[in-house]
């Protein structure tokens, strides 16, 4: 059977118009479909974004917690290493409070007479001197910081071995005073260390660095200000020295000397 031939010439304009309309409808339909698809994609993206943000926050919190644990681990390792390499008898303590009255610089720690703490025992951190015990209770003690106005610590300049007293000036500074000679060679940047007198502090333990030098040649006076090596306002774990056991941390000065004279 043969297909019935179409009379193409008579119906072609209609077909043209019809196909144009079909084309237009098709394009509109495609556009609408695209828009709807875009809308659904955006909604899904928004939901996904919110979920990812929540997950991100959770991960950030976990990371922060892990970082904190890592820092604490490093700190505790440092404390352990410090405790192990020294012959001093140390009692680790935690700071639980500070002084209530302004311009008084003391700390309360969670160790007391029940733990072997006594008055005037030295308190240190791994970096340097913090102060000493002034009051002892059963399960807590009060530590007088070296920057307090009533604090006095015997010290020497590590470089020149000049002896003097470190007295607190409040906030974050101390004064180095009662030096025997008025023309001592002490400059900014010199390190002050404990003298080890009375065996309370170990000998040679860092106290602070000279931050200001004023020399009055007319009155033959010198004034030295010192900045503590330890950050006294950011302490977490500290040590009470139960026994210094004559620990000597002072580096020995190597001198070129002639043969010693024989005694008569």
């Amino acid at each position: 059977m043969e297909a019935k031939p179409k009379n193409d010439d008579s119906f072609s304009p209609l077909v043209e118009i019809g196909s144009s309309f079909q084309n237009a409808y098709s394009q509109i339909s495609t556009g609408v479909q695209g828009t709807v698809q875009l809308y659904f994609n955006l909604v899904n993206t928004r939901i996904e974004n919110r979920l990812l943000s929540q997950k991100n926050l959770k991960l950030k919190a976990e990371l922060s917690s892990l970082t904190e644990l890592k820092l604490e681990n490093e700190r505790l390792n440092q404390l352990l290493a410090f405790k192990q390499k020294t012959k001093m008898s140390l009692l680790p303590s935690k700071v639980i409070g500070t002084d209530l009255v302004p311009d008084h610089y003391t700390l309360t720690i969670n160790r007391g007479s029940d733990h072997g703490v006594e008055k005037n025992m030295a308190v240190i951190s791994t970096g340097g001197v913090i102060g000493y015990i002034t009051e002892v209770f059963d399960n807590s003690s009060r530590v007088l910081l070296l920057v307090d106005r009533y604090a006095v610590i015997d010290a020497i300049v590590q470089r020149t071995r000049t002896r003097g007293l470190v007295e607190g000036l409040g906030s974050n500074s101390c004064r180095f005073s009662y030096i025997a000679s008025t023309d001592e060679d002490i400059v900014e940047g010199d390190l002050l260390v404990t003298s080890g007198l009375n065996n309370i502090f170990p000998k040679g333990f860092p106290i602070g660095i000279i931050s200001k030098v004023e020399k009055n040649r007319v009155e033959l006076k010198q004034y030295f200000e010192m900045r503590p090596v330890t950050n006294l306002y950011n302490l977490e774990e500290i040590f009470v020295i139960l026994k210094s056991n004559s620990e000597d941390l002072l580096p020995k000065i190597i001198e070129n000397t002639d043969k010693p004279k024989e005694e008569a």
Partner: protein
Amino acid sequence: MKKLGNLSLHYFSFIALFFIASTFSTSLWVLFFNSAAGPLIWVLFLVYWALYRRTREAVLMLYILCFILSEFSSTDFQQLLFNLHIILFFITYFKSRIYWDGPLYYMLATGTCALLFPVVQMFTFKWFGGGTWLAPNFFNWIMGTLLSMLISLPSYQLFRFIDRKIRDTRNESMEQGYL
């Protein structure tokens, strides 16, 4: 008997509140704000009792505050007692000259005493032992005063609440502003 019970409870409430505020100030405040100056808690209590109580009751509270305060500070007890007596004397004189009822007056009185306390401490410390003479840290001084004034407003409401609940009969006298 009930009146005595109420009186004891009233005193105990303020003492307990002061104790809790002091522990917060020495522990939690430092945890959040490090070495930043805090409000002068004892000034809030002392000023309130000086303004709204009889003088003998204010003196009694002063002694109690001193005992508790000396447990939270290395300050010499005698020095603390002396300084607070000066503050009490000042606030009593201040009240006899200028007075109006309300929290703003309380805030003004608290601010003045918070400003005065370190100055008094600076001048009297030499009479109570050695140590280095130091001027108060200016920034901490101003911050402590401002914070004390800020906290005085909610403190006033709290103290009044305690007074209303436990010592109702005091209300009239307090509104008159003079006992």
